[in-house]
């Protein structure tokens, strides 16, 4: 983990923007310091039961007030203990519907807070995380007393963190979600206006919250630049108006729908039929291994639609299912949402040859993927041949990277004669990195001990490996 040590206290590298308080870790537990600027809002929310209400509705991460003496950094007035989240994830990795749910959870909270005289002081996508089976707002200090008759301070942030990326993903291309990596403070509205087809602004929600909003921002910026901003400042918003604004945002978000291509599912259906026996054999073996190891944290790399993630989750593991295809992760997220409550599965979209880097201030504010481990078990099924033959990553580097994250690895080797490998090699001749069982075993053998193996009917081999001690 990239964190800064302060004696025994480890400051969270992503929690420094809000002067009201910061998150830190001590002895493996997660705490939140509340400093002087945040105490009024905290006391008001605590004493009026606002936190209890939001936690009770499942919208906010729970906390327990603890004695800050001998525990928290200097200047801490109050200290809260939070449950530890299984995995931090970021919007550039989320399926479309997860980002949409993250937007809706903000609006649900606002609907509860406004009648009580409170609101959210910010509306950042980074404030939403998975706590086991449910999405929650994790920043307790986002809740503040509403400034009477004031506009919502987080409205601009909400539109650039949610409405712009959702609209661009749904109506330009879902791959535009990766633009988050560049715009970690939210998408510029003028970019969304430029890229979205003009007729999409016939939707009233997008017209108001993107088009009109973007134009007003540009106009106000110009006025401010030439020093004529006084007249444009500080409008008033009534209580009824604010509730209307939240309803309008809710309708706008709810109305953004990504219709992912159904053709993809037909293709998957064909592949599945072709490999039915292979899938059955693999499932059986994975079931056996997961039951034996009882891992708490499983990373399923190249998870496809999450078939094997579901097996791991059925034994109580928290599973991070990573796939490069946004349609796959969306399919998994939606199928989990349809069930009664999510299972312990977090689907993430990522090209494993280019995993999430460290981003934000000093490249430490948002952690790179490998800093968010460790995993007790990593599944790498039908993956290695893609990394080696499509992305040209040597097997030894793949093995080293996997050993840096996982203590156990269940990896599939697909022989060069397999039709799937032949398909990748059909235009390559001999001009590719070495790929055979010998190279595979020697590369992985440098970092792992082979514990077990299972040869499937079609010749593919599953290896169960344990990271070498001291590795």
């Amino acid at each position: 983990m990239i964190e800064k040590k302060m004696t025994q206290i480890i400051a969270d590298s992503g929690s420094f923007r809000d002067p009201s308080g910061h998150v830190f870790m001590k002895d493996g537990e997660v705490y939140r310091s509340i400093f002087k600027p945040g105490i009024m809002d905290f006391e008001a929310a605590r004493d009026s039961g606002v936190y209890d209400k939001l936690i009770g509705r499942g919208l906010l991460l729970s906390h327990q007030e603890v004695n800050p003496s001998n525990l928290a950094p200097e200047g801490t007035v109050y200290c809260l203990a939070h449950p530890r989240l299984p995995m931090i994830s970021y919007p550039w990795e989320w399926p479309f519907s997860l980002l949409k749910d993250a937007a809706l959870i903000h609006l649900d909270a606002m609907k509860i807070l406004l009648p009580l005289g409170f609101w959210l002081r910010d509306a950042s996508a980074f404030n939403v995380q998975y706590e086991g089976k449910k999405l929650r707002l994790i920043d307790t200090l986002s809740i503040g007393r509403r400034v009477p008759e004031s506009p919502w301070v987080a409205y601009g942030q909400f539109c650039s963190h949610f409405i712009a990326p959702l609209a661009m993903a749904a109506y330009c291309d879902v791959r535009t979600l990766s633009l988050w990596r560049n715009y970690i403070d939210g998408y510029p509205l003028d970019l969304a206006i430029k890229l979205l087809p003009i007729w999409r602004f016939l939707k009233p929600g997008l017209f108001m919250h993107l088009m009109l909003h973007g134009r007003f921002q540009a106009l106000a910026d110009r006025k401010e630049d030439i020093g004529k901003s006084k007249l444009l400042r500080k409008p008033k918003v009534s209580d009824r108006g604010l509730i209307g604004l939240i309803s309008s945002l809710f309708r706008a978000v709810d109305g953004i729908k990504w219709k992912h291509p159904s053709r993809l599912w037909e293709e998957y259906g064909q592949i599945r039929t072709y490999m039915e026996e292979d899938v059955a054999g693999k499932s059986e073996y994975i079931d056996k291994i997961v039951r034996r190891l009882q891992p708490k944290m499983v990373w399923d790399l190249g998870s496809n639609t999450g078939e094997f993630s579901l097996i791991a989750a059925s034994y109580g593991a928290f599973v991070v299912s990573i796939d490069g295809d946004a349609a796959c992760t969306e399919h998994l997220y939606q199928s989990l949402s349809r069930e009664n409550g999510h299972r312990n599965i977090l689907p993430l979209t990522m090209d494993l040859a280019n995993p999430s880097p460290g981003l934000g201030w000093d490249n430490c504010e948002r952690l790179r993927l490998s800093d968010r481990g460790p995993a007790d078990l990593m599944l790498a099924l039908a993956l290695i041949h893609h990394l080696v033959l499509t992305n040209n990553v040597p097997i030894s580097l793949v093995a080293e990277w996997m050993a840096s994250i996982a203590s156990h690895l269940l990896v599939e080797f697909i022989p060069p004669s397999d039709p799937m490998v032949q398909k990748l090699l059909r235009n390559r001749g001999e001009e590719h990195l070495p790929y055979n069982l010998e190279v595979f075993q020697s590369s992985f053998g440098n970092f792992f001990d082979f514990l077990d193996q299972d040869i499937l009917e079609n010749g593919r081999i599953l290896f169960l490996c344990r990271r070498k001690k001291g590795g």
Partner: protein
Amino acid sequence: MKSNSILAISLIFCCLLIFSANTVYAYLDPATGSMIVQAVIAAVAAISVSIGIFWSRLRSFFSRLLGRKNDRKENDTNNS
């Protein structure tokens, strides 16, 4: 595009007439343009909510009125 600019500018003048000064302090910059546009949207939303409330009250008033008349008619027919 031009008509949108005209609409945006006319809405700014409208909201300047409607809204007066108020101070907002936040660690997050609320952005002047975002505050103005939401004030305009909120004003329109507040008006539509008010119209909605007025309309539903009007409907319930008339339905009560008609309901009473109907009740009276029913009572009259039952008594006769």
